[in-house]
């Protein structure tokens, strides 16, 4: 009885932070897609998407240090800049608290971002509590990520950086995990573009997903830490940079990324290919995508 429950808790993508008793719920709403909860402890505001109250924070924001990225998964997503240091057009799929688009907007004031978030309520919460503001440069589209991507392919759009952060653990949008979807995303990338995906590290889904990414992109950087259920995929159809290039770019990014709490000493060792999955696992396709079942195993 207990084992599956434990699995379910570890299997989610969100790191856990202990929320002591004095955590105060400042906003709670049930949207069309999930239950949204914002709580506050001292200066720390956290956003959760969950039906269960087991403190799985999607995104946290320290009001005293608003730039700082609290979670390692967000910092690992920023490692995509080691592959593409000067993105001009950025596509974000999944908004969360808006941490990533806000950081990218400050780092690259010349860049244009398209942010796709299925849940209008999440956009509101990001704006009301986390300081996220759509603008001329940062446009928000309240729609399904797959539909947006398909239309963008049709229009011939190109992006230097695509960030896929649409999996929050309770229900996985299976159509955002398939080979066909990844091929569409790949078609949106410029020759030196990068896809960064925040995905699953635990459960059988890990193997299936890893194989699917490998089939579409060949080798990719597979960033994992022992402490969280997250894994970040960094894929570049134009080829991965050498260790030397990575070090040089890390050096250049060290100062600009410091305000975000990103330490290259922490990040750089994680940027490795590490093929540690079962390569016999079946690829996920539009025809075969039981991600939610696989994730619970």
């Amino acid at each position, binding site marked *: 009885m207990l084992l599956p429950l434990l699995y379910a808790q570890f299997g989610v993508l969100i790191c856990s932070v202990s929320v002591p008793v004095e955590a105060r719920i400042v906003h709670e709403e049930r949207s*069309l*897609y999930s239950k949204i909860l914002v709580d506050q402890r001292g200066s720390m505001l956290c956003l959760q998407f969950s039906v269960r109250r087991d403190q799985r924070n999607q995104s946290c924001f320290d009001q005293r240090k608003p730039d700082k990225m609290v979670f390692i998964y967000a910092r690992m997503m920023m490692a995509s800049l080691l592959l593409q240091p000067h993105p001009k057009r950025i596509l974000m799929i999944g908004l969360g608290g808006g941490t990533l688009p806000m950081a990218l907007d400050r780092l690259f004031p010349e860049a244009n971002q398209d942010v796709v978030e*299925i849940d209008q309520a999440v956009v509101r919460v990001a704006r009301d509590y986390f300081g996220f503001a759509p603008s001329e440069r940062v446009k928000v589209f309240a*729609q*399904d*990520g*797959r*539909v947006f991507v*398909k239309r963008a392919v*049709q229009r011939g759009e190109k992006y230097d950086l695509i960030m896929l952060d649409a999996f929050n653990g309770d229900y996985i*949008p*299976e*159509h955002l995990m*398939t080979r*066909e*979807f990844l091929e569409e995303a790949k078609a949106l990338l410029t020759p030196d573009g990068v896809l960064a995906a925040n995905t699953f590290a635990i459960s059988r889904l890990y193997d299936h997903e890893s194989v699917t990414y490998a089939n579409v992109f060949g080798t990719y950087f597979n960033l994992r830490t022992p402490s969280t259920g997250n894994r970040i995929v960094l894929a570049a159809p134009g080829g991965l940079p050498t260790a030397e290039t990575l070090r040089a770019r890390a050096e250049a990014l060290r100062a600009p990324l410091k305000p975000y709490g990103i330490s290259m000493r922490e990040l750089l060792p994680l940027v490795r290919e590490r093929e540690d999955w079962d390569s016999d696992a079946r690829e996920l*396709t*539009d*025809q*075969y*995508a*039981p991600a939610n*079942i*696989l994730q619970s195993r």
Partner: protein
Amino acid sequence: MAYLIYLLAFVGGFSIMSLELLGGRVLAPYFGSSIYVWGSIITVFMLSLSIGYLVGGRLSLHHPSLGRFAIIFVAAAVCLYPLVYFNEAIMVWVFERIEDPRYGSLVASGFLFIVPTVIMGMISPYSVRLLVQTTESSGQVAGFLYFVSTLGSALGTLATSFYLVLWFEMNTILTLLTLALLAMGLLAAIASRRVRS
């Protein structure tokens, strides 16, 4: 005889819900998995079933027989199977013409699912006609038939969402449903010959 008709109604109920559940998967790559996609699918299925009930009831007025009942199953199979080959093309066609994914998904599920679902909707009223012997028992027969076919629907939903999608590709499941409907049609045809001879 009665057992056979209940079995047929059970498989009919199973297939309807299995197909409805697959519908969400078929549409997701083009129209997403937002709530309105399910709204479109459920609307189309309910509408199709309502028409199917009407037509099935009408058909049962004219020389109802197991042989004709068999034809309904074969027709359902014949109209279901092309989905394997044409669902992609139909969705591309709709996707290119309708920007709004709400109406896109509604129109696409209409094209994809109306015909087979209307035909499968004919099964229940036709079964009632074949089973009912007397006016007094008609309510009981209809009640038991709804019981069996809705049980089939429940099982179709469960089997598809828990296991079939884990074991098979979507097209394989559609093929299996087609074969199940064909098998039922065949069974009814054989039984109808036996009854006559």
